[in-house]
């Protein structure tokens, strides 16, 4: 009979098969972080190209000062939920400022982006309702849908025909249907066709929630995200987002013009039963919102960097995600080559994300880069030079080794070199 922990032993077996001794890209320790683009990892100074720190605000002086002052004024934590311990003035003010930023009537703040989705989605939809979600949705959305008890229907990623077919089949039930999509998808960096999705939502009388985790601060004239960029903010019922990317902190939020959003806080378990965001977090996020509003040039720089990296990698012949965005994903032929490439880049002082399925969609293995407004053009060139250096070793059609020389010494199993 299976023991309680046997399921974890299979994880160990998988890890052993995938990762040679001494290499664990999923458990990297940052010894020291110098700036939003440079750190020391494993005793090596590296250029960070996989942080989601889109606007580079983790080291913004105004945000740091605001956080420092908040700690001195209000302490390090709230030690409980807002229901039990009370709402700090900063929580209230941040919600008002977020609502103002989005031009919405209501906002609610959560302690992380993940629990924002868990809480909002599982509270909005329940048994008897239907959720129609994009196939490439984030794990927090899948978990939230499961928790909700609603009927869960998946449509093919960004496939409007499949979405419409599914809404059509629902008939009158579409009035109790919540469509969930993301502005920019986290792994491939591709964008939702939100104008068309919003049109379908209206046509079938459904509801629409957009997760702007990777698009807030990145898209739209004011940085509000894909709904703003697509000109459909009035048709989106709920926008959720995170503080942990463009805003450089941790936490999440939901904004809406539906007055019922304020009632969510009384019944949403991940709001009621979680310690509220710390004073430092709240203060730095409030400041980051001001920085975003006052500095649209940050987005200009971000997109210039994204364009430089995307076009540069494309010219080198790498197979990339379909859309130009600050998330630049390189599709790799095999898991083994992905790992070799990740290690070779790391050895050249470049840190990117290694993504294996099921975290990557459609069974793909990816090297995932995310660029920041804080990257200099020269840093982007350094990243490109590193990719150019490892590229010949990854092409099976070329003679020679199947991995960069320094990586070959790491003792990868034979099956990972194919």
């Amino acid at each position, binding site marked *: 009979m299976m023991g309680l922990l046997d399921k974890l032993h299979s994880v160990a077996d998988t890890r052993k098969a995938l990762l040679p001794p001494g290499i664990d890209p999923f458990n990297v320790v940052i010894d020291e972080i110098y700036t939003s683009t440079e750190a020391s990892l494993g005793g090596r100074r590296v250029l960070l190209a996989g942080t989601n720190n889109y606007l580079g605000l983790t080291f913004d002086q105004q945000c740091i000062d605001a956080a420092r002052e908040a700690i001195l004024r209000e302490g390090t934590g709230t030690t409980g939920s807002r229901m039990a311990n009370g709402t700090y003035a900063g929580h209230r003010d941040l919600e008002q400022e977020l609502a103002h930023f989005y031009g919405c009537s209501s906002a609610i703040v959560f302690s992380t982006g993940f629990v924002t989705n868990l809480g909002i989605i599982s509270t909005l939809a329940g048994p008897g309702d239907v959720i129609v979600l994009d*196939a490439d949705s984030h794990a927090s959305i899948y978990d939230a*849908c499961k928790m909700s008890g609603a*009927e*869960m*229907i*998946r449509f*093919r990623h960004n496939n409007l025909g499949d979405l419409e*077919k*599914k809404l059509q*089949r*629902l008939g009158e039930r579409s009035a109790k249907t919540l469509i969930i999509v993301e502005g920019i998808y986290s792994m491939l960096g591709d964008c939702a066709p939100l104008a068309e999705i919003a049109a379908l939502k209206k046509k079938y009388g459904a509801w629409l929630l957009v997760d702007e985790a990777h698009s807030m601060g990145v898209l739209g004239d004011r940085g509000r995200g894909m709904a703003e960029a697509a000109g459909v903010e009035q048709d989106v019922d709920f926008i959720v987002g995170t503080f942990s990317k463009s805003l450089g902190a941790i936490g999440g939020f939901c904004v809406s013009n539906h007055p019922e959003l304020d009632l969510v806080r009384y019944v949403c378990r991940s709001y009621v039963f979680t310690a509220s965001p710390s004073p430092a977090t709240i203060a730095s996020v409030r400041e980051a919102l001001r920085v975003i509003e006052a500095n649209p040039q940050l987005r200009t720089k971000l997109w210039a960097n994204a364009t430089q990296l995307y076009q540069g990698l494309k010219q080198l012949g790498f197979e990339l995600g379909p859309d130009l965005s600050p998330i630049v994903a390189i599709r790799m032929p095999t898991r083994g080559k992905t790992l070799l490439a990740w290690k070779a880049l790391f050895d050249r002082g470049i840190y990117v994300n290694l993504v294996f*399925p*099921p975290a990557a969609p*459609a*069974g793909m293995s990816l090297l995932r880069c995310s660029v920041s407004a804080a990257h200099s053009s020269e840093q982007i060139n350094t990243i490109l030079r590193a990719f150019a250096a490892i590229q010949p070793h990854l092409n099976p059609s070329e003679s020679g080794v199947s991995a960069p020389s320094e990586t070959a010494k790491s003792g990868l199993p034979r099956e990972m070199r194919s």
Partner: protein
Amino acid sequence: MMTTPQYDAIFQQVVVLLQEYAPQPVPVHEETELIDDLGFDSLRVMELLHEVEDVFDITYPLNALSDLRTVKDFVLQIQHIVENR
């Protein structure tokens, strides 16, 4: 249990799809298990579901996956959805 002509027709189509999508090429029977026998993982199951939805012109709710173990379970689920659409 007696099967119906509709069940048999769906079963035949499902067998063809499973043989196409199953990671492990083993003979498919009613009691064959999708994970333990055919080696399906979560990603492969999703690909299979998309195909099933197209072939039978149905929507398969993900909630039904928790009750899915054998090929027979799968065929009965599809039959139920087809008959209630």
